[in-house]
């Protein structure tokens, strides 16, 4: 029985019972669900699959192997930590959707065919949007809708690609796909949207900071890492991923430097960390894939930890804007401490979890002689220190004391942060259990003198650079502002760009965008006018006119019939 229940189902089905429970029982029950799920997963044999015939297609709803297992384990851990962190929340919608979302993410990881994958893929989109809407603000509402459209679009691309792939190859199995056909290219694009590839990334920075404090913790763990898993499964060793990943590591950090909202900073940093994994998938050697899996594992923990600390700040102060924060270490010492651990982990200081995983990817890049990617990753590693290692703790908890005096985070939040922090340090020191879980046999030692010294040099000098820049007042000040990103293209059409490009270009551009906007706006208005109640389609015609239509159609039929009546 327990084997026949696909992993993730315990969480999805269990979530449906949550509304019927009250108080502590509900809390304990929700904590128990990920534990039970993990126990079920660990009880499954090492190589296991469940096959099913559906609509005449061979499906494989469950496929356990080493690659899916490690993602399954970390997803369960993340679900447990997220539930613990959000234990104080009374909102049933958040609880149900959070658990179901985690379950859908887990289910997707164990999907052995593209249809099952698609089903879970869309389920993650549908369940997670509630975590954004649960903020119940107008901004969150709009961001949630944009998020939903992008996520559903990614699923539709996946389905369309899967169907075309099936037409070409006759197989729906989700194994290595490559970029050989239009179908697999569509699937690649669908994965790419969810993995927040450069220029497709903006839904992430747009939506995550709008979610509830606890919702962001859930969101940070599953969606993007699911797509990293999917890329590792289907497109390992695809060269184009290396430049894509390198760009992903580099360009978000510029935005992170400028951004004022610290949760948005973390969203950019999330993007940057995904870049490391994408490069790892692109290199595609055993070492690189091990590094990707390990980095995803470590990353989920420290990123969740960082989002948790910012969530606690938001919970207590109502803001995460750098311009409003500062000096919180006095009121929230434990949160500060955990934040520093998270910062050290993401910056990959030796003895913290980021170090043991990121060095694998860097080494793999060097071994395969991807010089450009290697240098970019190195640059990005120094950049990580800026936004996540320094900016988050410094502006959030130290910096200028703005006189915010509040209480320490609630106990359940502290417990969750403590667990995550313990895991971050634990994996950095005692990394063998993690390495034992990796998809391939590991022949890699993170703590050799070269690794440690070079990493320390990189980080310490970057730190020195921070002090230097801060002292000479070259550090960009925190200001109340937002910075444009690709969402600008769909949130604000191209007029403004023209302003900085000179008058002649401006007028041309304005003409072009003006007419394009005019056409688009006109089309939108036309659709609305025609289909609104009272419009020609949205309101039934009087009988006379509909009778006229009937006559017209009869005429059409008769013409059609008479045209071919010489058969």
């Amino acid at each position, binding site marked *: 029985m327990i084997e026949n229940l696909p992993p993730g189902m315990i969480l999805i089905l269990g979530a449906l019972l949550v509304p019927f429970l009250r108080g502590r029982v509900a809390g304990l029950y929700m904590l128990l669900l990920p534990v039970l799920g993990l126990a079920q997963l660990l009880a499954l044999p090492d190589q296991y699959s469940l096959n099913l015939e559906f609509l005449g297609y061979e499906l494989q709803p469950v496929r356990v192997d080493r690659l899916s297992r490690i993602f399954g384990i970390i997803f369960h851990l993340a679900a447990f930590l997220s539930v613990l962190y959000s234990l104080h929340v009374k909102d049933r919608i958040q609880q149900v959707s959070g658990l179901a979302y985690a379950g859908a993410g887990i289910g997707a990881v164990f999907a052995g065919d593209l249809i099952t994958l698609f089903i879970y893929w869309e389920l993650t989109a549908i369940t997670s949007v509630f975590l954004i809407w649960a903020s119940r603000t107008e901004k969150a509402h709009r961001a949630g809708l944009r998020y939903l459209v992008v996520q559903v679009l990614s699923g539709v691309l996946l389905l369309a690609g899967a169907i075309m792939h099936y037409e070409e190859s006759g197989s729906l199995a989700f194994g290595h796909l490559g970029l050989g056909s239009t179908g697999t290219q569509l699937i690649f694009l669908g994965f790419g949207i969810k993995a927040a590839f450069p220029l497709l990334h903006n839904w992430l920075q747009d939506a995550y900071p709008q979610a509830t404090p606890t919702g962001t913790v859930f969101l940070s763990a599953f969606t993007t890492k699911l797509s990293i898993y999917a890329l590792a499964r289907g497109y390992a060793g695809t060269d184009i991923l290396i430049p894509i990943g390198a760009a992903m590591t580099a360009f978000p950090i510029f935005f992170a430097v400028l951004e004022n909202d610290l949760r948005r900073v973390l969203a950019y940093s999330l993007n940057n960390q995904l870049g490391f994994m994408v490069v790892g998938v692109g290199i595609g050697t055993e070492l690189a894939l091990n590094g990707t899996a390990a980095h995803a594992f470590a990353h989920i923990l420290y990123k969740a930890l960082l989002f948790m600390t910012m969530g606690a700040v938001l919970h207590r102060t109502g803001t995460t804007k750098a311009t409003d924060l500062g000096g919180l270490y006095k009121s929230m010492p434990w949160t500060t401490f955990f934040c520093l651990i998270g910062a050290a982990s993401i910056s990959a200081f030796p003895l913290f979890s980021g170090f043991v995983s990121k060095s694998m990817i860097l080494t793999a890049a060097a071994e395969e002689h991807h010089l450009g990617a*290697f240098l970019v990753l190195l*640059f990005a590693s120094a950049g990580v220190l800026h936004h996540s290692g320094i900016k988050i703790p410094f502006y959030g908890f130290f910096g200028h004391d703005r006189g915010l005096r509040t209480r320490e985070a609630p106990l359940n939040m502290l417990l969750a942060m403590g667990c995550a922090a313990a895991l971050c340090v634990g994996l950095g020191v005692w990394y063998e259990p993690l390495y034992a879980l990796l998809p391939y046999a590991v022949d890699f030692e993170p703590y050799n003198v070269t690794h440690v010294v070079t990493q320390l*040099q990189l980080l310490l000098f970057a730190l020195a650079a921070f002090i230097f820049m801060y002292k000479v007042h070259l550090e960009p000040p925190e*200001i109340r502002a*937002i910075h444009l990103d690709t969402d600008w293209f769909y949130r604000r059409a191209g007029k403004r760009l023209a302003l900085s490009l000179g008058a002649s270009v401006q007028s041309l551009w304005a003409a072009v965008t003006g007419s394009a906007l005019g056409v688009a706006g006109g089309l939108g208005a036309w659709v609305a006018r025609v289909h609104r109640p009272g419009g020609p389609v949205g309101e039934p015609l009087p009988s006379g006119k509909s009778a006229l239509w009937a006559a017209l159609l009869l005429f059409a039929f008769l013409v059609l019939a008479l045209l071919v009546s010489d058969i």
Partner: protein
Amino acid sequence: MEPHPPQNPPPPTGDEPGWPERPKNVRRLIALTIVLCVAAVAADLFYSKHGHYGFENITGFHALYGFFSYVGLVLIAGQLRKFLRREEDYYD
């Protein structure tokens, strides 16, 4: 470049500055960082590096790379801000 906010606004609550806020301690932390930096570069002299690329074996390569990456990042970002900055209610 934007005018800097005042470096040390008085804490509005008027309570004692905490340990990390006292200038003496800040100086100590900076000194510690410099010592660690020097130590890290000095360590390069005492073992044989195993970088994959030749340039990695230059003494202090990573230190320089880290320092200039950071400076470059911040300076470029500062320039980008001129183009990308908008008021907070830009999209509203």
